[in-house]
């Protein structure tokens, strides 16, 4: 059976994108809220 490393890379890459993207989204919300707080 061929090893299909491209698929393995694609899977881990996609997971990294999704988890990383979610982590970045949390960071963005955090920054927006901090900005609102300092405005007050």
């Amino acid at each position: 059976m061929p090893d299909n490393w491209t698929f393995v890379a694609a899977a881990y890459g996609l997971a990294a994108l999704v988890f990383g993207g979610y982590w970045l989204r949390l960071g963005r919300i955090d920054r927006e809220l901090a900005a609102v707080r300092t405005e007050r």
Partner: protein
Amino acid sequence: MTTLLGWLAGLGLVAGLVMGFGVAPREVTQGNVQRIMYLHVPAVWVAYLTFTVGFAASIAYLAGRRPGADRLAHAACEVGTVFLGVNIATGAIWGKPTWGTWWTWDARLTSVAVVFVMFLAYLLLRGAIEDRERGARYGAVLSIVAALNIPLVHFSVYWWRTLHQPPSLLKPGSSTMPRVILTALLVNFAAQALLGAYFVARRARLLAAEEEAIA
């Protein structure tokens, strides 16, 4: 506390990658593409774990009306959906070289897809309700319905696929799993569970901050 979780998660993920690529051997039947399993399988375990947390938190909210319970439920359901999405996507990527198709209506994939859509609907509902208190109440009821529906989904789909039909060819993770592969799976599960816990904790805190900002 949350930051500590984050660091532990990071460490765990590194350990998971080491186990998945360094320690675990090349699988006999499938070849190296099987390594996707170390990503794919723990993701659904973590997802269902967080949905259970969301279910419990929802009941707690309806019983005691503590906003913290609602924030936990909301965060848990959101994070669970993310992990389930990763599970479905990695499952499709694994399926293409293995089964020759991105998607197949087998029992596991179908039921996970239904659960995914159910909790996507939960997120849509929460997003559509501006009033915090009403959103918490309605969200709690919906997540209870969704969680209790999961066994119904699983049984119905399983019976649909297995009765009057021969079992599907390749079953990922056979019952006689080599010890080292099982260990690698568990390490990755622990890593992803830590990541999930970190996400939930952080998301819940942000929800609290959002409420303060609106107030």
